[in-house]
């Protein structure tokens, strides 16, 4: 019943968001999130569930998106006649077809071989997209108009918010299906093959076939995400199938947390926000993104979702509240330390000109500012170091086994 409630909650959040924030910008960001969620979830099917590290997942997203835009054009010129609400399905089918073709030879092995093939395919498709101008439209891409299709119950999709509700529907359905996939024999065997392909073969499953199925399903949903992209932006360009997009989805899934179903959703939301909001406050947001990614890989190998799930034991024991104060004690100086590092970076960047940082105005020409910054940084660093002990103690206390033989999920 808890699961059902979670799904209903998910649906309510999806549909409720535009009620809370309804500026054009907010809707734009929600639309981006919707696309990113489906895309990142599909990526997680490969890497998180199936153990296949891909550097070219944007290929299926992009091809799906391109075909979706072409489908919109066909609707506009009345070559075909169907509701644009089905466009994501067009993208999905193209993603699926592309994945069936590539998967037929790339899923033979996981690991490095798979990763390298995905890289090679990604580069080849990205290069082709600039060469085959008649389909891909060169660097300007192809664009279409979504409003020429037959109205969907009176909605003609003039406004982004209408597209958002459509996307939200697709996101919900896609999420449900991707979740259900993990509960099927094919989905579960994907986990098994990820863990131990050899053993999977000895219980009757071809590791290659299992990977192939995951790969194709993942390609399908990546294509659906591409279709959503086409609907939302009404154009698509080669950047949507090149290495940058492939890298971004890897970042999303990894930062969110690979091993958990909700991980990529978290990652998609966080990265979308960073991409669209942080970039307005600092030109260095890509640097921060890189730092965040590397730090996540180093210190939170299971991503944000893993960090949240770490507290499951304490939560189940009802001791989560006992962690609040220790977190506050260590967290405050930690945040201050991070903040002073960021301030230092920004000061280096804004050489010779004052700039606003949070509620302060900093000037790199002012030695006093540097000294103050160094003092805050050093003080918070030591405060953070010193308080780590009490956090550890509290953590141990909250997670201590009542029964020593009983291990908890780590």
């Amino acid at each position, binding site marked *: 019943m808890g699961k059902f409630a979670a799904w209903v909650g998910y649906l309510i959040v999806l549909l409720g968001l535009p009620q809370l924030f309804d500026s054009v910008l907010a809707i734009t960001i929600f639309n981006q999130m919707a696309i990113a969620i489906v895309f990142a979830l599909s990526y997680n099917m490969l890497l998180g569930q199936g153990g296949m590290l891909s550097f070219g997942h944007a290929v299926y997203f992009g091809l799906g998106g391109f075909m979706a835009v072409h489908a919109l054009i066909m609707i506009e010129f009345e070559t075909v006649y169907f509701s644009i609400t089905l466009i994501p399905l067009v993208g999905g089918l193209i993603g699926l077809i592309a994945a069936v073709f590539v998967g037929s030879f790339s899923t033979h092995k996981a690991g490095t071989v798979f990763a390298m093939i995905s890289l090679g395919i990604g580069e080849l498709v990205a290069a082709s997209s600039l060469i085959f101008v008649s389909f891909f439209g060169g660097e300007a891409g192809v664009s279409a108009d979504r409003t020429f299709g037959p109205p969907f119950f009176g909605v003609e999709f003039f406004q982004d918010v209408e597209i958002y509700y459509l996307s939200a529907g697709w996101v919900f359905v896609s999420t449900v299906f991707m979740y*259900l*996939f993990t*509960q*099927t*024999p*094919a*989905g*579960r*065997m994907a*986990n*098994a093959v*990820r*863990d*131990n392909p*050899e*053993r*999977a*073969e*000895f*219980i*009757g*499953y*071809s590791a290659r*076939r*299992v990977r192939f*199925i995951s790969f194709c*399903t993942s390609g399908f949903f990546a294509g659906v995400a591409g279709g959503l992209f086409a609907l939302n932006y009404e154009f698509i360009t080669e950047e949507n199938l090149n290495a940058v997009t492939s890298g971004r989805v890897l970042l999303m899934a990894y930062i969110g947390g690979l*091993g958990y179903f909700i991980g990529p959703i978290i990652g998609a939301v966080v990265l979308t926000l960073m991409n669209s909001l942080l970039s307005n406050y600092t030109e260095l947001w890509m640097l921060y993104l890189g730092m965040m990614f590397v730090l996540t890989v180093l210190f939170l190998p299971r991503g944000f979702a893993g960090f949240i799930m770490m507290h499951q034991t304490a939560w189940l024991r009802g001791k989560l509240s006992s962690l609040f104060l220790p977190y506050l004690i260590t967290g405050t100086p930690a945040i201050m330390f991070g903040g002073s590092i960021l301030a230092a970076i920004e000061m280096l960047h804004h050489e010779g000109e004052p700039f606003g940082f949070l509620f302060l105005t900093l000037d790199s020409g002012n030695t006093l500012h540097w000294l103050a910054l160094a003092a805050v940084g050093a003080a918070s660093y030591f405060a953070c170091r010193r308080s780590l002990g009490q956090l550890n103690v509290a953590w141990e206390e909250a997670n201590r086994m009542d029964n020593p033989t009983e*291990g908890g*999920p*780590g």
Partner: protein
Amino acid sequence: MSILSLHNVSKSFGKTEIIRGVNLDIQAGERHAIIGPNGAGKSTLFHLISGKYQLSSGRITFRDQEIQNRPPYEIARLGLARSFQVTNIFPRLSVFENVRCGMLWQQGLGYSFRHLLGRQTELNARAIHLLEEINLADRADFPAGELAYAQQRALELGVAIASGADLIMLDEPVAGMSLSEAEAAVSLIRKITKGKTLVMVEHDMNIVFDIADRISVLVYGEIIASDSPQAVRANPKVQEAYLGEAALAAAGDNDA
């Protein structure tokens, strides 16, 4: 009636011939042990039968079907299950998922993505039942990688027999266990292989002579004897090649 037959099976790695023309017949329902000194090729033989390695020459039939050089999963689907000398489970899946995965194919679920595992009440009940049999029911929801060694070995067995295969091949099932753990394992093996054919590689002679109906002795890639335990024990060739030192080896060192 023989369920598994090897005809002139050979295997070379480069220039080294590891298995040299092995002939072997396993009768349906028997408990057959393969013994031999270190490096005799026992594990290699297992790998050849189960499809992990390709044969250099020869023929293997299982229930009158040729299975040599077919991929492991096809062989497994025919009803030939095996365990591994080094624990070989799905470490991040739960214990329950491990055995349930072992059951999926024979359940006819295949690569389906239309069935929800949660709805397979009968399958899940059987998985729980199997966990009870191997005494892991209380660990059902733990990641398999976090189990204690003996428990992992038990799970290894559980995954092997989960499919309900008729022929079960166990590669040193009690290697590395303490005496009491080994005893428990042996009785477990007895219990879960009831009514099935068992082929096992084992170093511990007490266990071998305890369990096996028939014993084959593999020395330098050749079967030098295949007979009842008493006859093998009495065989001078075997004594010369193997049993003399077996007393030393019996403490349970590992096959290379």
